């Protein structure tokens, strides 16, 4: 998918142009000046500084596969393998009147929205608004109390979670959930396995197809680690990675399942401004590689800068949906965030 196919409002530059306006409204974000804007176009993302690499476990990428030294080839290896025949902009995920109750608590109240192919959709709202619950309803972690979720034209209904993943939805977790005792590369390999067919008999007798799939796990795994910027830490246990690298690893692991839709739950939580800006680049890069992205994020500057459209939740209800520029000026949204009483904004 190329830049040309994208409707105007999905131009990644769009949000950036006018975000200073929002910055001045959002107390506290104004002090992050756009010092990072310059490296926005760099091919390989350097997310912050690398901590000292453990002498024992660092990997020289070109030793593993010479192709990994070349960012272009890496991007090619990482890019979504599946052909997307459908026009950009058509609905990929349809949430229809989704209601989710926990006992008496209504976490989602008849929420309806679409995610369109090739866009970065922002999902925002104050704490406890139901954003994560929305993710969980999409990825099969919870079954909606009522309403329907359809992905790629197929209702997810009673599909198992791993089947939903293989249909093409991948996610990260708000509170990181990596496989701590596994190395970074092995974590990503688990993701690539979602596309592998051989099972116990194939592995037991090492049939040729199994070798090919293992080769794929290694190559695509390494390429993904390189893509998110942690290639050198491939053999370190996920548990021992610094916090930021763990978040990046979660993204790589989710991408490894070759999703059509990538759901990121507060990927920038706990990042400093420069890390956030690098992450924004990474998210755009992911979208440009042909993925659709759903992004939950609290940092307004990041959301406004990177998303094509935004859905706003408050107390489980959708209160607004639209382009970043409209959302920014929407009185209901401002009220939800700044706590202005309803009657004052009406």
């Amino acid at each position: 998918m190329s830049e040309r196919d994208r409707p105007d409002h999905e131009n990644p530059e769009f949000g950036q142009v006018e975000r200073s306006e929002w910055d001045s409204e959002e107390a506290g974000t104004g002090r992050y000046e756009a010092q990072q804007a310059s490296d926005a176009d760099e091919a390989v993302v350097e997310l912050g500084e690398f901590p000292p690499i453990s002498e024992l476990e660092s990997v020289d990428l070109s030793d593993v596969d010479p192709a990994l030294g070349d960012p272009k080839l890496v991007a090619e290896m990482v890019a979504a393998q599946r052909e997307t025949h459908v026009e950009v902009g058509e609905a990929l995920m349809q949430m229809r009147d989704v209601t989710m109750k926990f006992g008496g608590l209504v976490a989602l109240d008849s929420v309806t929205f679409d995610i369109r192919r090739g866009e970065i959709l922002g999902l925002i709202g104050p704490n406890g608004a139901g954003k994560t619950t929305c993710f969980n309803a999409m990825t099969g972690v919870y079954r909606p109390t009522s309403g329907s979720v359809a992905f790629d034209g197929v209702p997810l209904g009673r599909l198992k979670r791993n089947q939903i993943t293989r249909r093409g939805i991948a996610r990260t977790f708000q509170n990181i959930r990596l496989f701590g005792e596994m190395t970074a590369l092995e974590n990503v390999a688990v993701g690539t396995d979602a596309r592998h067919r051989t099972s116990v008999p194939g592995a037991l007798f090492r049939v040729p197809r199994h070798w090919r799939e293992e080769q794929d796990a290694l190559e695509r795994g390494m390429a993904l680690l390189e893509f998110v910027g942690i290639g050198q830490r491939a053999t370190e246990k996920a548990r021992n990675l610094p916090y930021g690298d763990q978040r990046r690893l979660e993204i790589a692991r989710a991408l490894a399942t070759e999703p059509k839709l990538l759901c990121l739950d507060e990927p920038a939580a706990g990042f400093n401004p420069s890390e956030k800006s690098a992450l924004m680049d990474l998210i755009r890069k992911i979208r440009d590689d042909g993925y659709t992205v759903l992004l939950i994020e609290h940092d307004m500057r990041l959301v406004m800068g990177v998303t094509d459209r935004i859905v706003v939740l408050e107390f489980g209800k959708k209160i607004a949906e639209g382009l970043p520029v409209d959302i920014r000026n929407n009185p209901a949204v401002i009220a939800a965030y700044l706590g202005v009483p309803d009657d004052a904004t009406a």
Partner: protein
Amino acid sequence: MSTSTSATSAAAAKSPGPVGVGDRLRLWWNQLSRPAQWGVGLPIILLIAAMPVIRPPLLTTPDTDFGAVMAQFGMYALLAIGLNVVVGSAGLLDLGYVGFYAVGAYTVGLLTSPDSPWNKTGADGFLSDKWAWLAVLPVAVAVTAISGLILGSPTLRLRGDYLAIVTLGFGEIVRLLADNLENTTGGGQGLSGIAYPRVGVTEANPFGIFSIGNTAEPFNSGLWWFWLSIVLIIVVLMFVGNLERSRVGRAWVAIREDEDAAEIMGVPTFKFKLWAFVIGASIGGLSGALYAGQVQFVVPTNFNVINSVLFLCAVVLGGQGNKLGVILGAFIIVYLPNRFLGIGDYKYLIFGLALMIMMVFRPQGLIPVRQKLLAYGRKIWQAAGRRSREEQS
């Protein structure tokens, strides 16, 4: 919402920590080529195999036959490897593992003992005396695998404590069946005259080298069973290794680490848990079949549920998830009570204490795990090893 700040990322950038002898050894081993690993490993295996022949004075068991002890070690090592797949890799707490050991042993017993109504040896059976044991060996493995499937299909939907309780029940049920179905299993009397590989028949050894009657020093029946079990251990280790270094092993460890996350990442968790159970069960059954052949006699009391705990001890002491570790654990469990006979009655006390001490000071076990879960992982390790050697020089 997360309250972490970038300060955490600085704190998490910990220094590599001290590099111990074990780590250096591991690194060195990992970057060896496959032939080189065999070149180092084979002499070590041969040396271990020769122990009952050499009988080093301090190492041997003065009060029991060392060959027989090593044979028992071989069987326990198999059990530990099998249980390790279930507990160590997939993280499923199975307290009834002895049940599979019993199923394997009783399958051989029921098919080849003259006391059993299903005996297929002798005049009217189709199994020749010479090959009966070998012929029923795959049957025993298959029957145990099926019993694993039957136990696993309903119970693996349970998690944690529930699974432990149900498997505990299974172990006890198998023993009770063996004890009470007197018409088939011989009840408390057990089954005797079980078949064994009748090879190496000579004047001095009219029943062959594997017969319990072979008491020639040092090449007695125990030694031959030990050697047979070493061969089987190597075969099983290679198969289990193939599984571990593949998507199967990754799925198991992912399930152990975080079952929900694994499922959401596309791992069919139930399917792979069931595989772990079935594979663990068949290895247990294999060990049971060896045991039945070696002692030529099975009774229910050999399969008390408390044995499950002993097997679990071997796995946890040695190092959950580490195949080499659990073999060491099995050795400790078998060797110590035989070396110091006084321990016998107190062995559960001693191993229980040892476990508690381990949990405090070395919860990862004697040889902690460093699983390698990629078929092409050696490539990565060699790359890492090269880098670190270059940095040192």
